[in-house]
């Protein structure tokens, strides 16, 4: 029965995908949405039963590998962590499926789109329900594939096709770490099943790896390798470059994959592996720093973007930074809490943005928007909900989940924690700034688009607005409803054995007793950020341009996303192609072939030419040779007999 949760989307994808154009738009929509709905009902029911009855179990579906000591099965690990994730994934996915019926209406290959969405959901569910690293990797690469297919969905657009490839490749760089992490885990633990790995950690503690003569503690090495995978998927600083480009995909895709679910897979993986990460202080410290750096970096870039979707993309990147940083503080519950609330409010923001873009016939540049407040009032209202939740205003969900992370950073009482605390607070201010900027630029002032677009502006149809309303409910309510369970007093009972925290990692527990100023600082900064945003974009509208001119180098630096993309292109892409050409022409052609087969045949030909000269045809030449030979042989015989 539970296997139906991942399998229903798979069947939907197969039915619709294989019959493709023959099935027709209506039927394709019906099948995928219905299957998703059923899966969601089962997933929610499972979630309640796991939480209430506290049943943890593993369902083995079929063997996958069995080779000596190497045993891996297709299985579902049912515990709070996976049940929560499955519920979130199914819920958001269903809403996006329904929303797509409106958003993608009239698209030439709608069935293909719906099939991809369902396929993605299958892989995501396979990922979160895995009971071993290998199946997780299956889902992991699978969602990467679905993301590649969906980013490049409009494959006639050169930029979309390129963005898809970029997303896949950058993720593969992370997966390079993931795969090696899997190998290292197997080499050390002799198993890839989560529960067995955690049980064997004490045996492995203290053992070391040496790679290229460099010694490193085994657990730390494994954690860092796995984290490299999480960096790719969750777009952390350094491997984040694919996420903004991924906005080339249709907006429902951005909402589902690049905001609510897939990009959080990295965070989920770290939580799932908490039983291992807890034993490596070094890895946790690195994770904290990188998460904090990402949170701030992405926020700074988001402030200067003009493309509506790119602002939200950088915002996602930044919020993922908060989740990762929570993991680094051993505040796994807080990470999952923020993951869940973020899924609601970010999906809401994206879909609201989509409905706006839809209203404007595909325009994404905020400089060409404005004045939409009165034309699409519902979208405007929902956008406000999303913005306030993102900025962290009380009652709305983001407030609860973000604050607990920041408080935990303070109460961890470490240098790293302090560093994260400062960066995260700066991030809060910037988040409020860019959210307000985004809102004001899109909806306020007078319209900046032309008459032709104006005539088409319309409020979203119900099939789009109803999912939005449901998401808005989640964005408002999920914070205070789930707070007690995820991070409050009942959290230990709630998570059960699915999250593991060492006794001396008390940051999250202490967070509730953080000083008053620590608790109120984020809210103060958020309000300040909103005020600053309103000041710049609503009241003194010339201020931003003046600031940009005054801090020109800084502005350029932010606009160019810290030049990371450009640096990578030069460092890796261009040099790889140059090296490849050198190896091909210099290595294969001029060295191996020239000295190998071609050289060999040239030598043979040359020798042949020489020997040909011997056959001159003159009898006395031959006689001379024969006589010389006889003399030499005779001499040899004489010498030997001496």
């Amino acid at each position, binding site marked *: 029965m539970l296997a139906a949760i991942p399998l229903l989307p798979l069947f939907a994808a197969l039915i619709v995908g294989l019959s*493709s154009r023959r099935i027709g738009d209506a039927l394709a929509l019906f099948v995928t949405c219905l299957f998703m709905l059923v899966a969601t009902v089962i997933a929610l029911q499972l979630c309640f039963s796991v939480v209430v009855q506290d049943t943890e179990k593993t369902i083995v579906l*079929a*063997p*996958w*590998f*069995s*080779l*000596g000591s*190497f045993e891996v099965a297709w299985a579902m690990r049912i515990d709070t962590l996976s049940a929560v994730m499955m519920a979130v994934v199914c819920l958001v996915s269903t809403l996006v499926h329904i929303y797509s019926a409106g958003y993608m209406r009239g698209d030439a290959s709608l069935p293909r789109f719906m099939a991809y969405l369902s396929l993605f959901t299958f892989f995501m569910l396979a990922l979160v329900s895995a009971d071993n690293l*290998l199946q997780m*990797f*299956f889902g*992991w*690469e*699978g969602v990467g*594939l679905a993301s*590649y297919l969906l980013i*490049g969905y409009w*494959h*006639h*657009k*050169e930029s979309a*096709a*390129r963005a*898809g*490839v970029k997303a*896949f*490749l950058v993720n*593969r*760089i992370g*997966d*390079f770490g993931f*795969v*090696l992490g*899997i*190998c*290292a885990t*197997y*080499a050390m633990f002799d198993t890839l099943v989560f529960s067995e790995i955690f049980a064997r950690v004490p045996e492995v503690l203290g053992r070391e*790896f*040496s*790679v*290229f003569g460099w010694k490193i503690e085994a657990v730390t090495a494994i954690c860092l390798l796995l984290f490299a995978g999480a960096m790719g998927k969750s777009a952390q600083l350094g491997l984040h470059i694919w996420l903004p480009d991924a906005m080339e995909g249709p907006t429902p895709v951005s909402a589902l994959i690049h905001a609510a679910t897939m990009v959080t897979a990295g965070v989920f993986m770290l939580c799932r592996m908490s039983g291992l990460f807890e034993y490596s202080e070094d890895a946790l410290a690195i994770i904290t720093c990188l998460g904090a750096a990402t949170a701030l970096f992405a926020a700074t870039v988001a402030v200067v973007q003009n493309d509506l979707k790119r602002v939200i993309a950088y915002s996602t990147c930044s919020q993922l930074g908060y989740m990762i940083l929570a993991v680094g503080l051993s505040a796994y519950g807080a990470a999952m809490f923020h993951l869940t609330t973020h899924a609601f409010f970010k999906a809401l923001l994206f879909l609201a943005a989509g409905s706006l873009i839809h209203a404007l016939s595909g325009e994404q540049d905020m400089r060409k928007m404005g004045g939409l407040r009165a034309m699409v009032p519902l979208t405007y209202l929902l956008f406000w909900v999303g913005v306030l939740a993102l900025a962290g205003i009380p009652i709305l969900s983001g407030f609860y989940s973000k604050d607990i992370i920041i408080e935990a950073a303070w109460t961890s009482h470490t240098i790293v924690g302090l560093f994260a605390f400062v960066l995260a607070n700066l991030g809060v201010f910037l988040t409020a700034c860019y959210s307000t900027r985004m809102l004001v630029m899109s909806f306020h002032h007078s319209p900046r688009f032309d008459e032709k677009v104006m005539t088409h502006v319309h409020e979203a149809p119900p099939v789009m607005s109803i999912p939005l309303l449901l998401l808005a409910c989640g964005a408002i309510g999920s914070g205070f409803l789930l707070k007690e369970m995820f991070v409050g007093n009942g959290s230990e009972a709630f998570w059960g054995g699915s999250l593991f925290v060492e006794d001396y990692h008390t940051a999250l527990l202490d967070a509730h007793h953080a000083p008053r100023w620590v608790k109120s600082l984020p809210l103060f900064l958020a309000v300040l950020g909103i005020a600053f945003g309103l000041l710049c974009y609503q009241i003194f509208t010339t201020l931003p341009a003046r600031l940009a001119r005054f801090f020109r180098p800084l502005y350029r630096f932010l606009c160019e996303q810290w030049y990371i993309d450009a640096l990578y292109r030069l460092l890796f892409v261009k040099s*790889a*192609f140059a*090296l*490849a*050409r050198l*190896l*091909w022409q210099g*290595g*294969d052609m001029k060295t*191996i*072939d020239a000295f*190998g*087969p071609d050289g*060999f*045949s040239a030598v043979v030909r040359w020798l042949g030419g020489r020997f040909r000269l011997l056959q001159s045809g003159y009898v006395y030449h031959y006689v001379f040779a024969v006589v010389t030979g006889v003399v030499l042989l005779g001499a040899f015989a004489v010498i030997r007999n001496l």
Partner: protein
Amino acid sequence: MNDWPLLSTIIFLPLLGALLLTLIRGQDKDVALAAKATALWVAMSTFLLTLVLWYAFDPRQEGFQFAESSVWIAESGIGYRVGVDGISLFFVVLASFLTVLCILASWRSVAKRVRDFMAAFLVLESLSLGAFLATDTVLFYLFFEGVLLPMFYIIGVWGGERRIYAAFKFFLYTLLGSLLMLLSILSLTWIGGTTSFSELMQTEFSPALQKILWLGFFASFAVKTPMWPFHTWLPDAHVEAPTAGSVMLAGLLLKMGGYGFLRFCLPILPDASQFYAPLVFVLSAIAVVYASLVALVQTDIKKLIAYSSVAHMGFVTAGLFADNAQALSGAVMQMISHGLVSAALFLCVGILYERAKTRDIGAFRAVVQPMPVYARLTMVFMLASIGLPGTSGFVGEILTLLGVFRASPATAWVLALGMILGAGYMLHLYRRVFFGASEAKPAALYDLHLRENVILTSLVLPVLWIGLYPMPFLRIVALPLAPILGAAAP
């Protein structure tokens, strides 16, 4: 089990078919059709027989099954010995399966001397089946070398413009390697006093001798596999060979290198194998990175896939010498998978070439629009080639990596780089050929017809099967590999 010599039937049925083909007389057109039909029937029957073999094969029994043995040259003990075990079984099935596909794929693309072409393929099938089934060193050598002739002929007669250069390069490289192997085989026979695989495996050779003999085998198998830096014949041979020739070359002939390592170097010369393992690791690691990079800048689709083969074979050779169960099984699975996937990719290129008469990447654009079904099937093979989980490519790659990591973490790091680079060149290729804006409708591109669809679909199924549920394969493959492990003197 009755006494019917199943293996000999499998080996010689295609040869008999080839003889039959030479008897066909009449108008050119009639001859061509009759030849194609006969060849297809013979190949299908052989394939069915190999399926029977698979069915009757006992996965729990150790040693060679269905063994046949008769003395051939009494004085030297050389015999006609054939047998099948878990290692060779799938190569035999693969060989007969690919031959059927090759004949189908050449149905229309080969226009000249159809009868000879079909006969060459049947002879090729016979000889490769023989090479995989022989359990006698001299017999193996005969089949192994014999394969060269029909292949040389196929490239040289039905190949592209530079076919003569490519055919000779191919011939020279492999022949030179093979001669060194012959010396090693003869030494084994003289010193060990037998030519039977099973008896040789029981014989102990001194480590010093092993090291010399190993090099002889290495010369031949490294060329055949091919390992860096003996790989340069492969891209040329592939580019000039007709589609079906490339399929056999990538799907089968390359596998003979890895198979040879498995049959000779590892079980018979275990100490030398252990001694030379670092060398193989280094060459494999170089091969993966080097070939992947070179594939990145190719302009001919076929050449790109040829280089990707070199990279994939790097995984195989590294896995073979890692001396643990995961890596060895992984290497064998990688060979089987590559046999299917690279064959499929070459067939895909052939389909495109038949329509557009070019393989230049720059000549294509937005192919997905006129050919959506083709694009989708090619996507599956591309994903299998880059080792996406759920495809056969992943099974081989991950098992190999898991095993190699235990033997040599540094090698595993470099091999894993191949994962990134492999995705790089494949997606780069796919994007340029299939995606983009189509200005004008490309002339002469139309989607797959039934025959092509059947060919590619029949390859998709095993690729996914192995990827999702490899147990039936792993079970059979793992058993005969067990005695190879730890065979080296401590």
